[in-house]
């Protein structure tokens, strides 16, 4: 689509057209990023903003263990001072009736546990720190 034009259709919809075809694309964004829809496919661009979500993501280090999504902590299999091996399930989360085992990203000693059984945790929040 070399020589093309983009028209806003309203409500998040855009029409892209060139000499050969026309395509409708939907766009929506919030603080976390921008989403684009076309023909049943969805793409997402993470925002580079200074918002809390982004800064949380940037602070993530190899010593941290994060939740990939909002979830409830159903089990914690490690205590501070305990040695864990890479791949070992150290926390079990539950979301939407599905269990999500959180595995140790590397071998090490647990420095601190930042969640408790029953907690509702948000994505990007540090659940556990390794030394």
């Amino acid at each position, binding site marked *: 689509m070399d020589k093309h034009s983009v028209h806003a259709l309203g409500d998040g919809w855009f029409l892209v057209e060139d000499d050969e075809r026309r395509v409708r*694309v939907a766009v929506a964004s919030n603080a976390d990023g921008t989403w684009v829809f076309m023909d049943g496919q969805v793409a997402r661009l993470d925002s580079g903003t200074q918002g809390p979500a982004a800064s949380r993501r940037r602070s993530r280090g190899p010593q941290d263990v994060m939740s990939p999504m909002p979830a409830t902590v159903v089990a914690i299999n490690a205590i501070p001072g305990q040695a864990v091996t890479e791949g070992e399930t150290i926390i079990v989360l539950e979301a*939407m009736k599905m269990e999500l085992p959180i595995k140790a990203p590397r071998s090490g000693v647990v420095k601190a546990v930042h969640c408790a059984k029953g907690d509702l945790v948000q994505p990007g929040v540090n659940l556990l720190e390794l030394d």
Partner: protein
Amino acid sequence: MIRRLLIANRGEIARRILRACRELGIETVAVYSDADAAAPHVSEADRAIRIGPPPARESYLNIDAILGAATASQCDAVHPGYGFLSERAAFARAVETAGLTFVGPPASALEAMGSKVGARKLMTNAGVPVVPGETPADQSDGSMTAAAQKVGFPLLIKPAAGGGGIGMKAVHDESGLAGALAAARREAKASFGNDTLYIERLIEKPRHVEIQVFADNYGNTVHVFERECSAQRRHQKVIEESPCAALSASVRGRMGAAAVAAAQAVGYRNAGTCEFLLEGDGDSARFYFLEMNTRLQVEHPVTEAVVGIDLVHAQLRVASGEKLPFSQDSLTQRGHAIECRIYAEDPAQGFLPQAGPLLLYREPQGPGIRVDSGVKKGSEVSVHYDPMLAKLIVHASTREEARRRAITALRDFAILGIRTNIPFLLEILDHQKFVDASIDTEFLDREGAAIASSIPQEMPNAAALVIEAIRKNPALRQNDALGTGGTPGTPADPFESLGSWRG
């Protein structure tokens, strides 16, 4: 007729029941947890009552809170929907004891079908074919091994009190038996508080074919034909359709008769579904009773489309004491229907459930297209409940037309803000095995990951052009779905970089 009905459920099925009530002049009372205060099913009901905090066991599974709401709002009936309390005999009994009508089967039928072992015995006595199997009274390893040898390998070990595939183990030869028994016992004990197991022959490459049945209080029991639900991932159905391409007229007739016999054997009333495994196809196909779902099914619209009846209307009429609004002779199948379940899950991340706001939500429309959904633009998808957002049901004169209609509709189903399985559904509908109607119940467990990895990963060129146009002309961004795309022109502009796209 029922005057005022409490809907003990949420999401799309609560809205489905609500619409049927409105059409029949029945007042509706919705219940909701704190997570659903702003949900569509709450605002659309005639009244809405809060029943507790977000966790289901403190709200939608809380019998006392739900009965309290029904009594306080002077309802004369309760519809349980599916899931939650719908198949709990204790709930049906509590509703009846409170003097209200339970829109569903009697508690005794729920109990009879609730135990797999008991149901199996009842079905065998009623002449309904079941998968060859054994439930040894002596559950020791020695006795279980003898039973396994009698049934033959490959076989399946299942918890007697179970469901949903939990604790189910496939064993292909005797060497794997001891380990599978121990694991199944552990899981059965943990999930159901009962580690009794049964062993049955593993039917390889079966289809899941189920028969809708309906019974009233006047001795009428009919079947409303089949639905094929072989497209399932980890025992969760993904695509359902009717008719089933592998079913000949004579096998269909025999399955229908078996389902009616099953319902009659437990004194069934109202809508129910007998699930069968189908082995082979055509006139030589064999079928085996699996279990009876004693409630309205998620996939009931497929039957409604093909048969041209309203199953929820019929449920409400029969619960009100009326006769079945149709007879066996009046029912026929016309055309082909396909249902696709839209789940909030990311196929690219092992189908990880997704939660978040729906920044944009637009359902497809057109001839032969029906969408039953529990969300709208701005809804917050929470982690507390089932990840199903909506169901797309298409109907057309042939299977191929229905398949194309489903593809076209899904390409027009815009959901932004969280990832859904729509790209995965599109890949399945386009898969040669689906085109040929030759998939079995293990197909998605075998090939689902490969199918998910064939989802396009590159951002479509036209989508990139829109982003580029918005970047060059920030005024265009006011047309963004929420108009909140950050402050134009700041260094933190989300349109600055196209580097981190993932399709």
